[in-house]
């Protein structure tokens, strides 16, 4: 599954970044790399963008960008 369909409040581990676009590059530079834990905090009023928590800080990204991040829910 991707970060885009992760439910609010759920924590997951990034397994893979799909593709290599300016957006995926920026996301990785911001610390969203395979192995890191992320949690979806909320979505903006119109459902997009979303806020995630990663490496102890808050990051906003559009849903379309979240779709490039493959995640696995951690137990």
């Amino acid at each position, binding site marked *: 599954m991707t970060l885009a369909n992760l439910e609010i409040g759920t924590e997951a581990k990034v397994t893979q*970044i799909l593709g*290599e*676009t*300016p*957006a*995926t*590059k*920026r*996301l*990785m*530079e*911001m*610390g969203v*790399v*395979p192995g*890191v834990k992320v*949690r979806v*905090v*909320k979505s*903006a*009023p*119109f*459902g*997009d*963008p979303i*806020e995630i*928590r990663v*490496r*102890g*800080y*808050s*990051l*906003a*990204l*559009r849903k*379309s*960008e979240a779709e490039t991040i493959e995640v696995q829910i951690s137990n």
Partner: protein
Amino acid sequence: MKSLQTNQKPEIVIALAGNPNAGKTTLFNALTGMKQKVANYPGVTVERKEGIWKLGDKTASLIDLPGLYSLDATSLDEQIARDVLTGKVENLPKPDAIIAVVDATNLERNLYLVTQLFEYKIPVVVALTMVDVFEKEKHEIDAEKLSEMLGASVVSIKASTGHGIDELEEKVGAKIGKREEIPFVLNESTENGNAKIFERYNFISNAVQESVKHNDLEEHNFSEKLDRILTHKFFGLLILIGVLLLVFQTIFSWAELPMNLLESGFGALNEFVKTKLPEGILADLITDGIIAGVGGILVFLPQILLLFLFISLLEDTGYMARAAFLLDKLMSKFGLHGKAFLPLMSSFACAIPGVMATRTIENPKDRLATIMIAPLMSCSARLPVYTLLIATFFAEQKVFGFLSLGAVLMLAMYAIGIIAAIIVAFALKKTLLKSETPPFVMELPPYRMPNFRTVFQNMFQRAGLFIKRAGTVILAISIVLWALTYFPRPAENAETPVFTTTSEEKCLCPETAARLKDEAKKAEDEKQSLALQNSYAGQLGHAIEPYIEPLGFDWKIGIALISSFAAREVLVSTLSIIYNVGKDVDAESDTLTNAIREAKRPDGSAVWTPLTAITLMVFFVLAMQCMSTIAIVRRETNSWKWTLFMVGYMTVLAYVAAFLTYQGGKFLGFG
């Protein structure tokens, strides 16, 4: 660029790098005190901040790089930073050392930039900020271990109290001129971009794991709690609207008092200069040309200062990113970034601060699209035009029995501007400014108390840049426009009766004196009106008459259109001069509204009908009648091409819309 010290060139250059919000500016201020200077990097609008830092017995030039997350040159800021670090910027030697400002509360992501800095083969000293905040949250950080793991000096500092500054000085001083081992290098076999990033983060995770003890209660911090309200689906939007209204209200109405003061100040200065200088062309040039022109733009300074105060506050507290987060969906529908909202909103007060505020938008194409449409927002300078025309033709009329027609028209003008802006933005993003959707990916920094020194410093530095940037172009255009309305001078003919009332006033009865004074004023007004009609601007008015005839405008309105190119509100004073009522009237003056209503064409028909008035208003919504905006757009885009494009498309849009309004109105039987 001139050096800060004209007599002594700094011996050492040190670059200050770090993520946005890492505390870079505070450290920069602490190290340089007031000895700093802001300019732009050649050819771009990236701010170049430079200061003098006393490093032991040496003088170092401290270069404050823009806030960066990475050095891979996707944004202009990143490219400039790379140029500085590789010594490619003119008159700026390659730095001897780098101070990397690292926020301890956000260690891993901050260290990413540091791993990239290592690759420039310049000694790096890490200045660790916010350690106290980090440790208050019951984490522990071992600076020595971190230094060992990174292979670079790490100094824990607190810029506001000066803690660690001496140690930083010592550590940086020790690095100067030393060639040292590069602490971290990428595996040479790593080629793929994503893999490189991955490798850097692995190095970081390892270093952090060894030097930081986390407690597990790190989540649900203060900012996240505050965000439950501030980015709430409903209350978040409500609060945002409130904040924007406050900003709008401030630049719109609270700036009025200082603006009026400035205006009367320049008026008084004008009068004073007039009395001091001998009458003639020089006096007229200085007063009506230069003082009036430059004064006309400096009047906007209070609005600009206030807007920048708000922007600095919103940025410094961390709220700006939330506003972009809340509005991005809405704005992206028109192809714009969430951050475009504030500049556009500000443009309702004045496009100049609005255009300058687009600097917060990182993507150049998004920024350009926002600049291009900002002047379509009905600014406060259009209000006198709307007010005059509404007062003249629609004062008493009602719609549906209770709504004033004037208010409805006013609202319609705002709506026309907004709709045009949406269409233009959409069209631009589909064509000329087409680009892959730039990443939105944006940090939501923790909420912090703003540092007021930084906020005010920011405000004044930006306002200073505005005066410097806009000043020269505006001065030049003011003089040209003044000359157009001033030359050729009418011959001082004998037909104009000369009234010397001073001696007669004493002996005549008050009525006669008043009558004589009145006649003198009338003659003076008439003289002014004739001079304007015969000037080059007047001739231009005649020349463009065939082209504006289809809009229902005669050559006198043509003159007003030409002179109001300086600034929209000039239309009111120009019309007053043309219609002989003297230039010192305001938009609600009865004499002017009467004069407009009674103006006749040579064939005896009325020049102005309600339809003409609406057409002129529509023209003013869309036309680029403001030289100050043109000057600032030229400076901010650094391109005459885009500036002329803006003037061109707005003029065409205004003409077509006015044409359709007038001809359509006539077809429907109005006017």
